[in-house]
């Protein structure tokens, strides 16, 4: 199912557009649940045995699972259909965004005076990986429509179709699940200033403001349009957030000025060099006693060859060039290299609050932290999804 956005910039879609969105969402559900299951069965039945025959052992890595699967009929059909469904996601919302450009601007103008702010930096050198490829096959990528509402509207409406309801009614399940987890696991922690890096439209920023209403929340991204949209969206939902155009690997903030530095589904969009710099910057701007915390895809080292490749698929076929390189890195090392003590690192799996409920998140936070990263549902957008996260405290 496709979700209906929870603010006035939601589409006034024609019946035909509604039908198209519903179809794509249902199609993705078939691909990501049923065809993914078929591919796993084919891997066990055909691909892995064939690999074993040739190499005398099972595929040991994501790369070898990929090698084993290439050419298998179940892999071919899953992949070809997933690529096309991804294109159909963005196509299903493009017309309504174009048609409604003026109305969206008018809606945004209505809330311009609400609390919260937007600061763009026209002089910022937007990194190549943000504009030079169509990231996850989204035409025009994050810089589509420059600093207009267009890129944000395409992303918001697209995500509503893409997520099949698994990211919550307000597309904020990741932020809600993670912020509630932190709040309940560390009840004495009272952050006063929170930074979201690579925030896009701020869909997973707002839950932090809800979890810690007294805190000042700042959200940055390199692309201007999604920030323009995100700022209006936050105001429409009554959340005062400071949106600023900035790169996470070059923060214009003072040392020791934040209690939390957060990101969701962001680190995999950076090159290895940018990512390392990002962690250094997070360490720099955190106050002593502050927390860096990221929601991301689980690392390859903690998954079997097939499940690892299942996630790495996007790197090769969904225009996510850094996805696999990120998943090959070890989160503990990323933190340690930036200055965080090894003992202050932790990683965890949070059940989706929308699917499993508040109690499940509370249970996970209260000590039952045995959820295995390696299980199929972790980090995979399919029925029963759980989110992987890691963090480190600055001493």
């Amino acid at each position, binding site marked *: *199912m496709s979700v209906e956005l929870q603010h006035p910039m939601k589409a006034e879609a024609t*019946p*035909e557009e*509604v*039908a*198209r969105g*519903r*179809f*794509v969402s*249902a*199609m993705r*559900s*078939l691909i990501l649940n*049923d*065809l993914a299951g*078929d591919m796993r*069965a*084919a891997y066990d039945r055909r691909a892995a045995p064939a690999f074993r025959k040739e190499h005398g052992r099972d595929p040991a890595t994501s*790369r070898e699972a990929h090698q084993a699967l*290439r*050419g298998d009929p*179940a*892999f*071919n*059909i899953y*992949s*070809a*259909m997933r*690529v*096309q*469904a991804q*294109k*159909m996601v963005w196509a299903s919302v493009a017309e309504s965004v174009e048609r409604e450009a003026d109305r969206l601007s008018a809606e945004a103008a209505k809330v311009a005076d609400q609390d919260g702010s937007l600061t763009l930096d026209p002089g910022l050198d937007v990194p*190549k*990986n943000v504009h*030079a*490829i169509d990231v996850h096959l989204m035409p025009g990528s994050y810089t589509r429509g420059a600093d207009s509402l267009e890129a944000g509207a395409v992303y918001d409406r697209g995500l509503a179709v893409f997520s099949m309801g698994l990211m919550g009614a307000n597309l904020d399940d990741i932020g809600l699940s993670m912020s509630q987890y932190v709040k309940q696991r560390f009840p004495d922690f009272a952050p006063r200033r929170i930074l979201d890096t690579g925030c896009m439209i701020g869909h997973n920023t707002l839950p932090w403001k809800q979890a810690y209403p007294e805190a000042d929340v700042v959200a940055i991204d390199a692309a201007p349009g999604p920030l323009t949209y995100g700022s209006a969206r936050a105001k429409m939902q009554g959340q005062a957030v400071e949106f600023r155009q900035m790169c996470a690997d070059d923060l214009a903030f003072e040392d020791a000025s934040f209690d939390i530095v957060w990101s969701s589904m962001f680190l995999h969009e950076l090159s290895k060099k940018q990512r390392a710099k990002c962690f250094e910057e997070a360490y720099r701007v955190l106050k002593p006693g502050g927390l860096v915390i990221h929601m991301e895809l689980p690392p390859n080292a903690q998954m079997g060859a097939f499940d690892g490749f299942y996630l790495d698929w996007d*790197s*090769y*076929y969904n*225009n996510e*060039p*850094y*996805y*696999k*390189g990120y998943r090959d890195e070890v989160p503990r090392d990323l933190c340690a290299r930036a200055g965080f003590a090894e003992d202050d690192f932790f990683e965890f799996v949070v059940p989706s609050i929308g699917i499993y409920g508040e109690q499940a998140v509370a249970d996970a936070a209260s000590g039952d932290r045995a959820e295995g990263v390696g299980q199929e549902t972790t980090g995979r957008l399919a029925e029963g999804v759980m989110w992987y996260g890691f963090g480190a405290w600055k001493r």
Partner: protein
Amino acid sequence: MSDPLRPEDAPPNLYDDQGNPRFFADPGMDRFVAVVMNLAQEVWVQEERLLALEEAKSGTSIDKDARAKEFIDRVFAPIREA
């Protein structure tokens, strides 16, 4: 032209000469799959319009998400592994 931003270990034969991913031995099949999906979407759009008329006529509401799932399961049954 292949896209310069690819994972470092991506073999070039994963893509066609325009940088699109290819999966089937016959590249026509990759396009054919996309056509079948587009066509199924067009049929569903018509189906949903008919359902709307039925709803208006009968005054009852139809669970279109459930209908869409049934429709897709039916159309794409032949590609499922046994």
